[in-house]
């Protein structure tokens, strides 16, 4: 069996020992050369396997860079150790792990546990906390995700028509080698993953789950669909227009309903959304609807990130 040689004609062992001796700059160059170079058709003359170090062509310069690399690594390790030591020393004096007398377990946590189910209507106390007691933070968090989606859209979405035509041509070439096994498996798995994701979102207030985790699961299903069937198939209904539409609906519903909730809370007015019967699917006031909105935003944002990184267009 012939030894595997990379496009530069060197064995894996030779590359690894070169990396050890010259630092990871060379590894970067190799990575980049591999990505950019076309695949070698014929093997160039093989390098003798007993020469792990390449011949030193520029004597003094290599020694200088080697000293600089070693010095840099030493300083980096010392600084890391210093910062970690300082933080460890601080942590060593902080309250113990798992102790019930910690200052963190005070009357706030007690109230969330004891009255959480009655006041928010949610059986899952963590969901009740983030979507009712501290809902303002979650509003900010969904908007962080939206901001990131906007920035990535602005950076990566190909603007001109020529670029889009080029990307479509690349896609058509790729479509010829679609993987049979992946497609068959995807046809079985995607509906089940989506159903599970919907279950996690809808039961956010009854069992472990919520909008964020369920949204990530559904987003994974959409990414699997894109990978298995190509962008021609997924581009039929998962377009930039869908993304925009869903984002507008979900985020504006979220901000407006939370504004209503904050306003009624501050002015001591009763809210229209009552807690309902605890344990039902549609109980706990606004929480199931907020979970759905958040789940939609998260799944489409995950899909948008993947599609933009993969081919520059949704």
């Amino acid at each position, binding site marked *: 069996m012939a030894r595997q040689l990379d496009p530069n004609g060197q064995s894996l062992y030779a590359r690894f020992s070169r990396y050890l001796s010259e630092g990871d700059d060379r590894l970067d160059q190799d990575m980049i050369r591999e990505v950019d170079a076309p695949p070698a058709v014929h093997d160039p003359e093989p390098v003798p396997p007993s020469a792990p170090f390449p011949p030193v062509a520029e004597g003094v310069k290599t020694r200088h860079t080697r000293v600089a690399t070693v010095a840099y690594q030493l300083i980096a390790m010392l600084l890391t150790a210093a910062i970690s030591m300082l933080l460890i020393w601080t942590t060593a004096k902080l309250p113990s792990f798992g102790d019930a007398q910690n200052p963190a377990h005070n009357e706030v946590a007690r109230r969330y546990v004891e009255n959480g189910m009655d006041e928010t209507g949610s059986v899952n106390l963590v969901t009740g906390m983030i979507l009712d*007691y501290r809902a*303002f933070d979650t509003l900010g968090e969904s908007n962080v995700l939206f901001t990131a989606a906007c920035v990535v859209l602005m950076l990566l979405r190909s603007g001109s028509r020529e670029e889009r035509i080029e990307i479509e041509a690349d896609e058509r070439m790729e479509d010829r080698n679609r993987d049979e096994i992946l497609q068959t498996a995807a046809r079985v798995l995607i509906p089940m993953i989506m159903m599970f994701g919907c279950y996690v979102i809808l039961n956010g207030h009854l069992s472990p789950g919520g909008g964020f985790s369920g949204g990530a699961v559904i987003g994974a299903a959409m990414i699997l669909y894109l990978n298995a069937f190509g962008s021609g198939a997924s581009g039929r209904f998962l377009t930039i227009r869908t993304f925009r539409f869903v984002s507008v609906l979900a985020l504006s519903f979220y901000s407006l309903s939370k504004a209503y909730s904050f306003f009624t809370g501050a002015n001591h007015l009763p809210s229209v959304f009552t807690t309902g019967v605890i344990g039902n699917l549609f109980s706990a006031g606004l929480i199931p609807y907020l979970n759905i909105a958040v789940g939609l935003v998260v799944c489409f944002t995950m899909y948008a990130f993947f599609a933009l990184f993969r081919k520059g267009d949704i």
Partner: protein
Amino acid sequence: MELWQSLPLVSIILPLFSAAVMIVLRGKGARAFCFAVLGGETLLSGFFLIKIRAFGQSYTYPMGHYPAPFGNEIRAGLFEAIALFFFMLILLLSLAGGLHKLEEHVRKERMPLYYAMILLMTASLSAQIFTNDLFTSYVFVEIMTLAAAGLIAAHGKGRAILASARYMVMNMVASSLFLLGIVLLYDLTGHLLMSPIRQQVAALAAEGQYKLALIVVVGLITVGLSIKSALFPFHSWVPDAYGTASPASAAIMSGLVSHAYLFLLMKIIYRVFGTELFAVTGIENVLFVFGLAGMLIGSIVAILQQDLKRMIAYSSVAQVGYIFMGIGLGSRAGMLAAAFHLLAHAACKSMLFITTDALIRASGGSSDLRDLRGAGFRARLTAAAFAVGSISMVGFPFLGGFPSKVNFVRAVIDIDPIHRIPVLIFLVLSTWLNTLYFLRAVISLYTMGKQDQPRREERVRTGIAYALSLAGFIALNAGLGLFSQRIINGLLSGLSMFS
């Protein structure tokens, strides 16, 4: 709870909702919608300022049906209202002034996303000004950081993307340190809202427990926010970021973003740690020293710059040093000086950045200072605005910079014997250095250059929005200078209800 007291809530939710809607608009509709929302927000904040001045005290507004510390809350007072009103004015004027160049630079399809980011920054600004909770402030600081990274990289040129990447890396370091500080503080006190944390921290400091942990926490949070607002040793991202971004982005970033973080830092010092604890940990002195160093080194490097935008960027570093010097003094008068300089510097620096585009066009497309000669005759309004901004930074009377420096002097003379000598020396030194590079640029603007320089427009044409925005900026600076006493009184009473 009267109706006008819900205005802070509106000022946070309105831009969030509008940013979500902005993503489906395009073209002229997007632009009109953005300006409508920004204008509405400015009017709201002005109205709120009038109302709260009459009300005379600060109040807390629970966000949800539960009182603090079980639910979230925001808190509004006179200082917050003044700051919000000024920052909204500066944002509106900067966007209007830089709009022309922005529409050249940024692709048409990406403009609605740019407006969405501006609206998200507005929401984040309101939230940071009014919040009374540490974790909420972290989340909204992240919104502002990500939106600012988008603003820098908006026009897609290689150097801008590199500047944005370096900005993001430094800010991610800062965010991690800030979050770690908040988490350690939660571990020590068990609260996330600022007022309960203060009581707990005071109790812990009185008992003498957890001394090292408290110092580390104060250090982490301060370093995190200082990196984000470009304090002296952490300012490496500033020249690239402000120098390569579009003028509107640079104006908004230098005038708004770092100042919002500085406001948050002042709020945390007052409301979470308390000035006594802050003085005891010695971090105050560190900030003071770094502020002084920043003032000096920022000005020295600015003198050595050849590029107009980078010179203004380094001047930003120097001016932020002033503000940290004020915070580092530790007294109420020092905070007042820092707060007033916050407003004066924002108004002035944004105007300077907005004028750079027309000045560059008047020098034949070169941003080199040597090609700037005579540009004052080819772009009259622009050069006048640049001159006003420069002399305001130097400290000429009747403009914003003068009362600001007087405040700094007042904060140390007779009251503060320890800090008196360094502050006075460094004030004099930095004023002299500021004059060296700012007045040099202004003088070169108005000297006729050689006739054989590269082709440039005889009279640089600028739109009416640009002219209006520059007029607004000049009026704002003059207002800060002429009505400074009234504003200082407002700030004083605002600071007294701040803690």
